[in-house]
């Protein structure tokens, strides 16, 4: 396994990213809520550049106790990365599509050592 230096932890803002190329492999490293996550820049739908897409919160529908709809809202916890080709969305913390557990981004481990961020390939 190769250990790839990505950058300095303090350079990452919350919801920030770094999309890097290592040989033929492209990887997006995301910093969300104090943790790092890394995925291959390859949407499982059609191979789009998923890690270069927009980052938005998950949209949820609010239901009252009687199950009537109360409209849509942003989920403040669930953060999504969205493929700029066709709109497939994945939870940045899990790499999984919100409605299809089989649609899952290829993930990589990330470590922080003395303030330096590494991805393990």
């Amino acid at each position, binding site marked *: 396994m190769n250990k790839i*230096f990505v*950058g300095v932890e303090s350079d990452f803002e919350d919801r920030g990213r770094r999309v890097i190329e290592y040989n033929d492999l492209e990887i997006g490293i995301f910093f969300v809520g104090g943790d790092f996550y890394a995925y291959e820049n390859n949407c499982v739908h059609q191979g*789009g*550049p998923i890690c270069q897409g927009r980052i938005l919160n998950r949209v949820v529908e609010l239901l009252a106790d009687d199950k009537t709809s109360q409209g849509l809202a942003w989920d403040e916890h669930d953060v999504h990365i*969205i493929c*700029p*080709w066709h709109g497939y969305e994945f939870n940045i913390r899990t790499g999984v599509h919100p409605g299809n557990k089989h649609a899952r981004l290829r993930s990589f481990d990330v470590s922080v050592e003395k303030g330096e961020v590494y991805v393990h390939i």
Partner: protein
Amino acid sequence: MDSGFEKTQDLPNQQITTDTDTRDILRREAKYQKINGLFKWPIVDIDGHHSEMTSWKEVIEYIDDPILLHQAQEFQSRTGGAPGLSNHTPGLRYQDVGGRIPHQQQLGERIRDKTVHRDVTLVRRSMDALGLDYQVLFPGNLLQLGTHPQPRVEAQLALAYNRWLCDNILPFDNRIKTLLYLPLGEPEMCHQIIDEFSNRDGVVGFMVTSVRFKPVHHNSYIPIYRKLEERKLPLAFHAGLNWTDEWTRQTDLFISMHAISFVLCNIVHMTNWIIHGLPERFPNLKTIWIESGLAWLPFMMQRLDSEYQMRPSEAPLLKKLPSDYILDMYFSSQPIETSNIKLAEATFNAINASTQLMYCLTSPIGILIRQAPFMSLSF
């Protein structure tokens, strides 16, 4: 960034936006093409789209009718609302999923080449990145023009758009082709358009926008079909969005309307086309059914066969099963429904995909269905 470990480099575009160059948006596709050697294959995209509304000020100058020209120019100068005389529906801007798909939202990339129209450059960029040999170009918002309440306006805008396309886009790259818009709302104009444009560079046939509510077997259209058959020109039925009929109005989300309307219009037209015997009347007229996907076709084959066998007296022109006529038709590959791969395989077999299915991207210039997507299907 050198700490003694493996070196990397940042991608030049950390995030794709509305200003990102088409070639950068498609960079991964070009890479895929290269790895898989797909550039060696001759590939025709039969359904690419450009954003004609971006050039609308130029298009309307081609309107023949002086009063409509004046109205279009006046409308053009107003802010808000649909561009001059068009019936473009602002609500349909949901297509970009609330800005999640940037290139659908806007193609704001920089273009320095002033020797050709901006759209020529955009098409070239996408074709080069995708390894396409030819691309058949269609409009975008004009796909709704068939529901314009004024048939005269539909006809004049169709004529203007066709002239603009033939003057400003098609002559500048022989890889760019089109199936030109036929305004069925005014059959006389259809004849004029076929006569005027059949032999223009890049015109490979004609297209009916399927979002319209006059049956395609109406007698007033029969001479049009005869003319196309005589000239050996194909006729495409291009599906589109419609949020105004009684059925789609019951869907209050774009996703629901989008899923249904792109198929519903062609279900209706294909039913009329077959049951009224148009394939028997014009056996050499090739028809192409575009952008309805493929999953509807096995349904149509089974449903129409079943009905026909019980009620042949209602469709006396037919000499074989409806599904046999469907096997003679052509279809585009956008979108291929693949969440159930066995159903997808059965669909391919049912329609004789190896000879009847044609590749397409369907995009505002150069998006992004993986090249020859069926190559990656595992059956």
